[in-house]
């Protein structure tokens, strides 16, 4: 039973490739078709955020990137953390509505519902990977490229699995508890400020508080990106957090979703 559910979850995008493909294409392009600005809006939000954060932290607070990363503009330091975070935040923030939005479909048509959280996570990641890649190309030209960049897709993939697990859980639970929607939005804000994106972790003086941040997997992801891109290395402690946490999140989130998806019909 347990393994069957897990297998169905793991195989979902491959067994139902056509459906997955169509769904992803549909939702990906519907981001652009309905509004005039289309693609513009997708990139405007992160750009505006980045400009504001750069202005506030780099110009007003005169924040500097920590010395261990060498002579580097704080904006670049900020962006390395912020762009992958934005992919995560986008997927996480949309999660509560994913299944609810598809209610008419779920109640009327039989199809593997697990496709929904998967496409719901793939789309923001696909969208934001574009921005991240452009940024990386820019950095490569500036001479930051190193062999360890090979690890980047791997880390990004793990971050995707980590997100997918959470999205599956949230999207399923929100069917039963609509209040979660408000909570998720709030949680996202808190999580953003508790992740050292707009500030370097080294700004925190107290070592034990710094260590507490290791409980936040997003901190490890952000730090891993920065270390790989800027220094060409990655501290094992971050990898030791990222790998198991991502896999556990992916598997257990999927399992929970598969366990309760049959009850969607009654509630929706």
């Amino acid at each position: 039973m347990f393994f069957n559910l897990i297998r169905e979850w793991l195989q979902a995008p491959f067994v139902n490739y056509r459906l997955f493909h169509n769904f992803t294409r549909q939702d990906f392009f519907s981001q652009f078709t309905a509004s005039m600005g289309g693609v513009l809006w997708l990139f405007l939000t992160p750009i505006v955020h980045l400009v504001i954060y750069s202005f506030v932290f780099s110009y007003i607070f005169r924040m500097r990137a920590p010395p261990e990363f060498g002579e580097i503009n704080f904006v670049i330091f900020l962006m390395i953390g912020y762009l992958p975070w934005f992919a995560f935040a986008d997927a996480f923030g949309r999660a509560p509505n994913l299944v609810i939005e598809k209610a008419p479909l779920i109640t009327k048509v039989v199809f593997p519902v697990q496709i929904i959280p998967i496409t719901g996570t793939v789309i923001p990641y696909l969208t934001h990977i574009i921005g991240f890649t452009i940024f990386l190309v820019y950095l490569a030209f500036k001479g930051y490229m190193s062999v360890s960049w090979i690890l980047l897709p791997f880390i990004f993939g793990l971050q995707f699995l980590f997100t997918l697990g959470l999205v599956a859980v949230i999207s399923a639970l929100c069917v039963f508890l609509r209040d979660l929607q408000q909570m998720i939005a709030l949680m996202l804000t808190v999580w953003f400020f508790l992740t050292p994106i707009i500030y370097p972790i080294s700004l925190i003086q107290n070592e034990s508080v710094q260590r507490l941040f290791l409980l936040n997997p997003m901190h490890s992801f952000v730090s891993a990106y920065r270390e790989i891109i800027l220094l060409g290395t990655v501290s094992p402690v971050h990898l030791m957090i990222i790998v198991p946490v991502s896999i556990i999140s992916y598997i257990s989130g999927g399992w929970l979703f598969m366990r309760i998806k049959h009850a969607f019909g009654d509630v929706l």
Partner: protein
Amino acid sequence: MSKLPRITVENLNKEFRIYERPQDRLIELISRKPKHTLFKVLSDISFAVAEGKSFGIIGNNGAGKSTLLKILVGTLQPTSGNMAVQGQVAALLELGAGFHPEFSGRRNIFLNAALLGVSDENIVEMEKEIIEFSGLGNFIDRPVKTYSSGMYVRLAFSIATMVQPDILVIDEALSVGDMAFQKKCVQRMNKFREDEKTMVFCSHSMFHIQELCDTAIWIHEGRIKEIGDSNKVVADYEDFCNSSTTYNNIREDIPDGIENRKQSAQETEVQDCRINTVSVQTPDGEEVTEVVPLSTLVLKMEVEVLIDNMEGHFGFAFMRSSEEPLATFLTQNFEGVNRGPFQKGEILSITLVVESVAMRIGEFYVLGGMADKSGLLWYESKFSKRLTVAANKGVGAIIMKSAWTVEQN
């Protein structure tokens, strides 16, 4: 070859848990203390549908028909009982569920077919046929949100039937769409039956149930009231509806007065009249099912008067389908027909003699009806059994009484 059952349902029950407040659901999950009230939608439903058969589901609104279909299709889980469905199922539970309003009809064909489990390659082959069948023409490349509801269902129906499922489940889909499309649908569904596919069909159109289904099930308040031959079940259901309807009570407005008001309040439960039988006979009084062209037919209807001082018109019509009349005969066109008032309890026998029936080919029904005094509002009608025109020589749709003379001067 023995036919395997495609769908078997045994002692199926479905209950919905109703929570007064949404948080009760969570409290129950955590504390395991029941916080819900049960609402029983279906109880003890059992039936089987053999391969190649079509199965109709009828019943009042809220009887549980759609819930049953949803369970068959698999979007709802039964609370208890067994159910086995063999083969690929295509369901039309709602008009164009799964259509994305912003995308063109063509894009949606692919999307919808993927939902039904068809690969893109196969769909490319069917695409042209689907578009042709739906009759959407140039609209196929316009966003679906610009479609009328009829166009919506036409596209959905075209897709669902084109993918050639083993089992087709349809919920009230035929009631939308214009006459021409309804006809096409019925043809398509008949083709479906010829191909030995299984069909489950839920409708309020008794005509379609009778035409398209072999067996039918009548669900009343979540239970099987009757199951069997569709003609029989439909007849009993219509009978049941006629004896309980309240909305077809036509009364003239009586000037104010407490007495009258009281009376009318009581009488909202009672209808004006009931048509007991409609039959077609030869002049000798023999019931006919096959009509010889140019013969004389006697149309008879027996009406039971249920209120005092009933007045109205009678009518007969030859109908090709539930909505396509061939010929009509109304008493308002004739002087000297007894139009009442009739008193409660009277049984009226209405007879109409039709000479030289002009139909040369095809099948039709006789519809008997009662209208109000103005002759505009028909509030009771009943179909006869199906009549077939006997085979005869000639071409053309009608035949006329004629006499030849050839003179050689």
